[in-house]
């Protein structure tokens, strides 16, 4: 487990030194979210209705931006091969990569979402549900996205191809995540939606690292 933690520490250090990367993803999130009221119209009732979906889709797109950089830099300078050759099981190291990706690309979005939710005139309760849903959804996205990132490593057209592969797999999470907030706004319980989201997260946490490891070995051959 220690190698995994030191890997996370290393990735976080790198991210801290290249703050622009983290901030770019955050800014993208903010800008995309702002586009919708500008494009659709500022009427508060309408904004409140579209807020969960818009915020989720924007979070999705912002995290997709960061997915490419999960393995590509390490692959470019040979670190990835060293990781594959090391005595630590590659699965653990992949798990570490996913955690650090979430900490850098996912968690800031979760923290930023309530601020943006206020722009959409969401009430405190809905903001809370939104945060909780994104807290479950963003790690899920890092997990599913890692599979796509490993599969498209070094492949031309990688970025768009990555999105094409990952987004269909992520649609159920989007439906339940945004649905949780919508259910809360409608006065129905959000528990069901969040439980399903949590179930998906648990499943992905078990299976995605294995799929990613297999995909990495294929990419490294």
């Amino acid at each position, binding site marked *: 487990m220690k190698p995994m933690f030191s890997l996370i520490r290393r990735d976080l250090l790198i991210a801290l030194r290249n703050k622009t990367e983290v901030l770019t993803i955050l800014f993208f999130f903010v800008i995309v979210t702002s586009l919708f009221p500008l494009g659709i119209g500022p009427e508060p009732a309408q904004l409140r209705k579209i807020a969960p979906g818009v915020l989720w889709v924007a979070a999705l797109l912002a995290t997709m931006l960061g997915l490419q950089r999960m393995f590509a830099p390490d692959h470019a300078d040979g670190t990835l091969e060293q990781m594959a050759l090391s005595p630590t099981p590659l699965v653990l190291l992949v798990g570490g990569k996913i955690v650090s990706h979430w900490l850098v690309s996912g968690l800031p979005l979760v923290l930023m979402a309530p601020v943006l939710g206020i722009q959409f005139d969401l009430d405190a309760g809905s903001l809370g549900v939104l945060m909780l849903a994104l807290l479950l959804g963003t790690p899920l996205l890092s997990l599913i996205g890692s599979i796509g990132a490993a*599969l498209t490593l070094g492949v031309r057209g990688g970025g768009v191809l990555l999105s094409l592969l990952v987004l269909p797999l992520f649609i159920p999470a989007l439906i339940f995540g945004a649905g949780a907030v919508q259910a809360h706004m409608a006065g129905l319980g959000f528990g069901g939606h969040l439980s399903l989201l949590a179930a998906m997260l648990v499943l992905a946490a078990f299976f995605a690292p294995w799929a990613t490891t297999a995909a990495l070995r294929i990419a490294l051959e």
Partner: protein
Amino acid sequence: MSYRLVNWFKLASPQKFYPVAGKMIPLFWLLAAAFGVAGLWLGFFVAPTDATQGEGYRIIFIHVPTSWMSMFIYLVMAAWAGLGLALNARLSGMMAQALAPTGALMAFLSLWTGAFWGKPMWGAWWVWDARLTSELILFFLYLGFMALQSAIDDPRRADKAGAIVVLVGVVNVPVIYFSVKWWNTLHQGASISINKAPSMAMTMLWGMLLMALCLWMYSIAVALMRVRAIMLERESHTDWVKQLAEVKA
């Protein structure tokens, strides 16, 4: 008894499979035509007019078979993919590659015929309910697989990467199938199940089954045609391809 098993593994080389596939293709076209004629005859000339939906319900004879095939082909692709990863066999990867476009076509036709059925019956070309959405996701999964394969130059890596994509996406198929049970959706519920009597007239049921068989035979025929073309493309450097009659001509 035991040499039967050996025979199958001999077929696992593209060289042996190519002529066998070639001989099977006309047979499957014939079966497809036979089932198709029977199914269409039942569907258009024997099955009675529906009480609520009039003649429009006849789309069921093409909509349900295409939906079934889109899911079935994906499962077969997943099986070939799993086999290819486990046995590291070239042919399995080629079969998965051969099935994908046909599966994608079936998914598209399912969505298309569904829309044409939905418009007169529900008033909408499209609704975002669980079954339609998950079928759309299936269509995207097919496209993603095909895009990934064409983006990777090395065929062996493309096979293995594609296999992982297919296997990860296979969870979607039960979701589609059970979506009408799990969610309150606009799409009608299952009328055919393995352990209950069907809730539709026998002629309608038989029409649907025959059309499904027709599409199944068609898919096999087309997949075999495609896998032969893939072999010609991928194995172009091998001796056995260069010795083929159609190449030497």
